[in-house]
């Protein structure tokens, strides 16, 4: 479209109102696990369905246990994804395992689905010397190059234009892969969101923008975040495909992502998916939601639990039983605790790791600073007990 739009001229004065467009929510499964009348179920085999469900359960258990560990002072920080597991596991299941995921921080379900082990989670959470990130970032800032999961960073929405750039590189490489970037409805208020969507549409990039609209950005309810009909309609202004899905409905999330991926990879067109859900837990271990929302509201959403909805569906398919379900939770709880106890014992990374990876090789001034630090630690070893004993066997 250019400035010349006379082919669609009108001659009566009329403003278009923001509320004229209401985007409906795509739903497949009811809470009792039966499909809505007329809803077409996606092609999801038993093996994949169980892989999804098991990843959702493990994510829930990991979140419960690690929050408890944070409360006991065993790790400095934690963020749960409770209530959003159908979104964070469901989208990953719909992708090729080599598609790049660039997430915000509440998407551990996607990592679980791709096979990130409990040890790998714990090493990062405890900042021990086995952490891929070398203990440099706060807990929950996971990353895995072998699982095509970009390392998380705290600044919100910065990954969204990066996803557009990554996907542009994939298009040029012609490898048939796409990038999915996940972010909350709060992050969508950042300028980087606008930059990313506009560039993706103009440059025709195979990227999927997945917004987790969970009602809150810390204490800010979504009606103080935006005045329009959520995030999904924004895509239309950028000339992009868009859909709103029930984020607690695994089949809706899965089906929408499968089709979005097809559009991205086959047509080189970006897609926006807005997954409607609710942040059942606190924002983080540093937050108490009782100060800004009601128990009644939380209970209402707890009754729409995505795990329970998927379980009901699996039971009706006769792919799963209550016994197997109980056993799964028991084993996961046991494994999470055992891994936690093991990984919290490992030491923190060596002092040298403070200066590696700032550049490909440390510049001379930085090496000089490390030598000064070592001298200092040798002088006051009791003040630096985690590194002092490990300076001499370098």
């Amino acid at each position, binding site marked *: 479209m250019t400035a010349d739009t006379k082919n669609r001229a009108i001659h009566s004065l009329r403003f278009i109102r923001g509320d004229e467009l209401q985007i409906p929510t795509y739903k497949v499964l009811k809470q009792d696990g039966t499909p809505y009348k007329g809803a077409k179920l996606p092609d999801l085999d038993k093996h994949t369905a169980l892989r999804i469900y098991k990843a959702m359960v493990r994510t829930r258990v990991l979140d419960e246990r690690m929050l408890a560990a944070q409360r006991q002072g065993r790790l400095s920080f934690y963020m749960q994804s409770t209530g959003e597991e159908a979104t964070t596991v469901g989208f990953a299941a719909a992708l090729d395992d080599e598609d790049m995921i660039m997430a915000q921080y509440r998407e551990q379900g996607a990592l679980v689905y791709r096979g990130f082990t409990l040890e790998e989670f714990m090493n990062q959470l405890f900042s021990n010397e086995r*952490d891929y*990130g070398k203990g440099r970032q706060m807990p929950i800032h996971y990353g895995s190059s072998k699982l095509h999961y970009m390392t998380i960073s705290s600044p919100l929405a910065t990954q*969204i*234009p990066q996803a557009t750039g*990554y996907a542009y590189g994939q298009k*040029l490489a012609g490898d048939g892969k796409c990038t999915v970037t996940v972010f909350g409805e709060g992050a969508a208020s950042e300028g*980087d969101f*606008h930059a990313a969507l506009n560039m993706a549409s103009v440059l025709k990039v195979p990227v999927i923008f997945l917004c987790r609209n969970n009602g809150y950005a810390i204490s800010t309810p979504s009606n103080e975040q935006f005045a329009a009909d959520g995030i999904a309609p924004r895509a239309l202004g950028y000339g992009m495909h868009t859909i709103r899905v029930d984020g607690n409905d695994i089949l809706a999330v899965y089906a929408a992502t499968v089709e979005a991926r097809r559009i991205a990879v086959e047509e080189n067109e970006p897609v926006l998916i807005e997954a409607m859900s609710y942040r059942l837990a606190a924002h983080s271990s540093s937050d108490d939601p009782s100060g800004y929302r009601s128990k009644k509201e939380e209970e209402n959403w707890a009754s729409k639990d995505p795990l329970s909805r998927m379980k009901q569906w699996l039971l009706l398919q006769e792919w799963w039983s209550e016994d197997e379900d109980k056993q799964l939770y028991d084993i996961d709880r046991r494994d999470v605790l055992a891994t936690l106890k093991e990984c919290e014992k490992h030491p923190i990374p060596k002092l040298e790791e403070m200066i590696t990876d700032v550049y490909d090789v440390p510049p001379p*001034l930085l090496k000089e600073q490390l030598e000064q630090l070592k001298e200092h630690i040798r002088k006051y070893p009791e003040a630096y007990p985690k590194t002092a004993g490990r300076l001499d066997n370098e």
Partner: protein
Amino acid sequence: MSKMNLLQAVNNALDIAMADNPKVICFGEDVGGFGGVFRATSNLQEKYGRDRCFNTPLVEQGIIGFANGLASQGSVPVAEIQFADYIFPAFDQIVNEAAKFRYRSGDLFNVGGLTIRTPYGGGIAGGHYHSQSPEAYFAQTPGLKVVVPRNPHQAKGLLLAAIRDPNPVIFFEPKRIYRASVGEVPDEDYQLPLGSAEVVKEGSDITLLAWGAQMEYLEMADQLAEKDGISCELIDLRTIVPWDIDTVVASVKKTGRLLITHEAPYTGGFGGEISAAIQERCFLHLESPIARVAGMDTPYPLALEKEYIADHLKIYEAIKQSVNF
């Protein structure tokens, strides 16, 4: 060898980099078919196609966010910010993202392929927003390299090195001398080292240090001082970070005096960093206080630009004060 101005040298370096490596991709505002508002990317789209040289929407945070993603994928983006004055919307993507990408991921991911090119500096009646020299803002960010060439030969060799360096590099191009600075440039592919200063002229009484377009004023001041019998050693820093302390230390130990000049404002300018570091390392060799001749601590003015600039006469006066201290 060919005679080129600084812009042609930049264009030639981009051409060589793109021919040499199909992963090199140039983009930014007006960079595509038009070839850039200064014509630094002329003919590159024609030669390498729209996929590898293209216009972006007008959004600096998007250009650098996109470039970070593209670099993390393994491509070699050369992103242009039209004026250094407009790099600030991308400050977050540069400082929090590009600079920390490798470190925070434990080297699982990096944006080492990234180069950001941007015209900087005053002297062109550009007022507040077409004159700034923001190198010091980036100098305090570990993880970035910051490079400034002073002539066409430097521009080509340093830009090729920046594009191929496995770290994100901000390449500030001195737009005042884009066309004015003309010199012989080798036609072949060559690189000049990053992190290394160049002793442009040897001397014995005082060390004069600058970078980019400011080297021109430094050379003019040196000619005035020479008539007074003052022997100046001239150093072009070339790389702001990581900067070549050893070369500067060696020179100051020899001359016993140091003058640093830059276009950017005095307070918080990179001259302060150099001054402090040299004072720590050369305390017993210094015969006069380290002099800094810089822009004033004001926004860059339009009508009073001539008065504002740290020109050759201001540098000349500071040389005499230092030598006569």
